[in-house]
């Protein structure tokens, strides 16, 4: 049967009727899965770092990453907003890890570990042995100062390191943009003092 308005053959249009509903449902599920995998490849490194800033072990961080992306799949399948999914992922992961911390299911808040790949932050490539020792001492002090920062300051620093704008950080943490700026200023001033 040909549609008078569109000229299309209705018999060839699978998106109508009961069969169409079935078809669309399955197609959307497939699309959502592909989108989740693509976002996983893109976001996993930053999300893993963010969770490590929270004080979780690598294993704990990977567990939360997995659960977060499963929730993302459910989110996409229900047709909810797809605006700024990266920020959505970080918000959900942060909530998950905070919930686990509250419930005591995991041992969070362990001291931040020294990043295995972190260089001596203040080391001049052309510096002599004495300067290198001083630079290492500065880096050690910086990491020690980071461990003492309040959780909210560490969270803001971590999200800033991942390139989020203040407005996005506020959205992820549920605080105002001006609060984000104030928290970041306090954190950076604290760390800068350690290096004075």
């Amino acid at each position, binding site marked *: 049967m040909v549609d008078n308005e569109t000229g299309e053959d209705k018999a060839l*249009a699978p998106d109508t009727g009961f*069969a169409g509903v079935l078809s669309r449902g399955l197609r959307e599920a497939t699309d959502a899965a592909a989108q989740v995998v693509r976002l*996983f490849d893109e976001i996993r490194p930053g999300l893993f770092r963010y969770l*490590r800033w929270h004080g979780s072990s690598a294993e704990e961080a990977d567990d939360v990453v997995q659960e977060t992306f499963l929730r993302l*799949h459910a989110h996409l399948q229900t047709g909810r907003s797809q605006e700024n999914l990266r920020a959505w992922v970080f918000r959900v992961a942060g909530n998950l890890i905070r919930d686990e911390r509250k419930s005591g299911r995991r041992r969070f808040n362990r001291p931040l570990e020294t990043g295995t790949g972190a260089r001596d932050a203040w080391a001049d490539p052309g510096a002599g042995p004495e300067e290198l020792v001083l630079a290492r001492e500065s880096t050690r002090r910086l990491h020690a100062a980071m461990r003492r920062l309040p959780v909210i300051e560490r969270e803001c620093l971590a999200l800033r390191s991942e390139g989020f*704008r203040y407005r996005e950080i506020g959205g992820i943490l549920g605080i105002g943009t001006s609060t984000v700026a104030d928290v970041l200023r306090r954190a950076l001033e604290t760390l*800068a003092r350690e290096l004075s």
Partner: protein
Amino acid sequence: MKCEHPSAELLLRRLDAEVPPDELAALDEHMADCGECKQQYDKLRAVSVAIGEYSAGLLEPPPAGQRRTLVAAIDGRAAARRKSTYATLAVAASVILTAAAVFLMPKGPAPEPPAADVAAGAFVALPYSTVNLSAEGAVVLQVEVPRSAVALAGMPVNNGPADGRVKAEVLVGADGLARAIRFLN
């Protein structure tokens, strides 16, 4: 004239490109002439670089098979969700077809059910599809609808009471398109 230094927060906002464009020129002009602010700005930048390097060092490669595990978990949850969705769709379809039967039947004689020999056992291709397409990855969904509604939809059914219900299976291909329907009674 007293020098009005920008706040530490404004310097940080400048570093993070969070200063509104209309404030930027005046701030940059001040920083170009103020060694104190320039020094403070450079310190914030150096600390930021150190934080970034620290953060980069926290990354570890994913455990082997993490991506595959995620895909398998998605498939598992999606299958469970699909089952639930199809059950809902089957109920919805029954309601819709019943309503159609109620409103349409009095307007004329019910069409004579055709082809009793295809009524049970064999899949009947849907109009836009063919049963000869690959069955790989296909799933079969069971639905139950009123016999009269199926007849009104022009599908072949056996003779029987108009108010009886027909169990059917819908063959859905791996591409998500419904391919064919088969009546079970």
